[in-house]
């Protein structure tokens, strides 16, 4: 009971932020909420938020588990680039490759990358920031080596469905997020695995002595994070029908980390909120979409993002809260 109270209160901030943004749009730009139906599929800003935010949401779900173990994965953006490059080269060598084979190979590569991160963190006992930094440094080089240092167009109808298709009137990527979320809730949250992850993040030694195989847990969360990053890379590649090793997934790791942190999962680990990660990703995407709808240059969108991130961190800092409340108290006295 206490646990659920705590986790729900940490969701108040991102929900309030999201509500505020939507309210702002409701007042100044009511057309923001209009949804139209074209060819039986839904279109509109709200749908776009889910569609464009799907990449961040997928990444955030994987990142959430990693952060819950007290780690972080800086390499998800480059894993996206690598899987994009792999799938591009598969379709380039044989345009008729079946979707199943293409996905299997590409996700296999992503899984290997994730497992490598996991092995470095869990078994070589290297700090997560540093262990995943290695792939972050190397990954784009690997991706551009795979594609021969150029962009490759990926045009395959079956593959294109991942990022641009519709299922029951909704964008497929949106449905995919729901599916993955459901899978995570049933497979992790509702099983002892969630407990093992939180125990590992809270106190690895204590978890170890309680019989939790914390090394294996760590390896698995990085593996899952790698797989999700691979999936995100495939959705993005499919969406833009192009694989550009130098641009695909760039700075995505930051979006994912922020979505998770904004959603109430502390970077110190030990507790996690999957729905929080989704809400965090929605908040970031709503902010971006709102800025677009007001014609703000997309190149400038990092600025409000940075401000949001630092503000959220500050709101979580005890010292800032104290200063803030004492300021408020002093005003009241005067």
């Amino acid at each position, binding site marked *: 009971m206490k646990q659920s109270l705590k986790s729900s209160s940490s969701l108040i901030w991102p929900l309030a932020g999201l509500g505020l943004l939507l309210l702002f749009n409701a007042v100044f730009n009511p057309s923001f909420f209009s949804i139209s139906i074209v060819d039986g599929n839904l279109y509109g800003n709200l749908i776009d938020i889910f569609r464009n935010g799907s990449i961040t949401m997928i990444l955030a779900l994987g990142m959430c588990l990693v952060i819950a173990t007290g780690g*972080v994965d800086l390499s998800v953006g480059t894993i996206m680039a690598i899987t994009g490059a792999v799938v591009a080269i598969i379709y380039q060598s044989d345009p008729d490759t079946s979707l199943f084979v293409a996905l299997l190979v590409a996700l296999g590569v992503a899984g290997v990358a994730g497992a490598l991160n996991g092995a470095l963190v869990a078994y*070589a*006992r*290297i*700090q997560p*920031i*540093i*262990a995943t*930094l*290695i*792939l*972050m*440094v*190397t990954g*784009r*080089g*690997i991706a*551009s*080596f795979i594609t*021969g*240092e150029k962009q490759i167009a990926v045009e395959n109808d079956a593959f294109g469905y991942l990022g641009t298709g519709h299922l029951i009137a909704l964008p497929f990527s949106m449905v995919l997020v729901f599916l993955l979320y459901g899978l995570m809730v049933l497979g992790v949250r509702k099983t002892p695995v969630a407990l093992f992850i939180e125990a590992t993040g809270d106190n690895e030694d204590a978890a170890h002595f309680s019989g939790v195989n914390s090394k294996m847990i760590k390896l698995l969360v990085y593996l899952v994070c790698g797989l999700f990053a691979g999936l995100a890379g495939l959705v993005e590649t499919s969406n833009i029908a192009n694989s550009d*090793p130098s641009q695909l997934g*760039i*700075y995505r790791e*930051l979006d994912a*980390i922020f979505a998770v*942190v904004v959603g109430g999962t502390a*970077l110190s680990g030990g507790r996690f909120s999957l729905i929080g990660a989704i809400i965090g990703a929605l908040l970031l995407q709503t902010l971006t979409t709102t800025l677009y709808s007001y014609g703000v*240059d997309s*190149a*400038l*969108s*990092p*600025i409000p*993002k*940075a*401000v949001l*991130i*630092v503000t959220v*961190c*500050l709101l979580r*800092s*005890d*010292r*800032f809260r104290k200063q803030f409340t004492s300021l408020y108290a002093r005003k009241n006295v005067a």
Partner: protein
Amino acid sequence: MSLKISRKYVPLTATFVVFVVLFGIASLRYEGFASAAVVVELFSENAFLGICALGMTLVILSGGIDLSVGSVVGFTSTFVATMIMEYAWHPINAWAVALVLGTVFGAGMGCLIHFYKLPAFLVTLGGLFFARGMAYAVNRESLGINHDLYNGLASANIPLGGGLSLSLTASLFIAFFVLTFYIGRYTKFGRNVYAIGGDEDSALLMGLPVGRTKIGVYAFSGFCSAAAGIVMTLYTWSGNPLNGVALELDAIAVVVVGGTLLTGGVGFVAGTLLGVLIYGTIQQAIYFDGNLSSSLTSVAIGVLLLIFILLQKAIVSKGEEA
């Protein structure tokens, strides 16, 4: 046969050996590689990376990390180019303002990290976003610089004899190296950086100015990044908001390959210089080969990074056992 090297110097020695071996292999494989011209080229080609990495060295020595350096380089180069070309500022004024902006930006991040105990990588990630956005806010496009001072500086080389000369950017890199080496080795500030990186709580209990030092380290890194951005304009004669994307990764890699422990407290500014030279040697060797893809530079540096991190881990855990 007791060649004893203090544990402290093992990573630095390893770096030196790697540099000599790499340079040796490249010299044997490629004709004309083992020349003074190539060595000079290593300095001027990587001046901006080197200057960033020097600032990063002190940050990492203090136990922190600065991910914003690449974006600050991009911002500075765009800012300087725009101010000179569109607002007709004198380059010296543009440089001075850019250096102040970079330093203040770094100090601001340092304040957030110190006063509010926020994780350094998170704050500087925010800084990365912010500075990159600001670069685009200043100017969307690449802008060439055409100014008498720049034209004059292009020929301001220091002759080394034998037809060789040290370009301005290379000499700036060396000047920054000397400055950072001096700060790290001979100043109170430098010793405080090592102490804080070693154990922040102990440093605090010993009465060292932890806050001032931490903020100072990030301010210095911001200063170095701004200087690197200026060096970039001198090298390319232009400013581009896209300059320095992912430069922070190369800078961190070079520092670690240079033998500085990412956990802080152990390392040498001289190691970073060697790290930059290793990076440059790999790049030049790939360039000399002609058949190898240039993306292999980052793969090679990543592999070196992995080896050095594992080596460091082995040294540290051996030290704990002892």
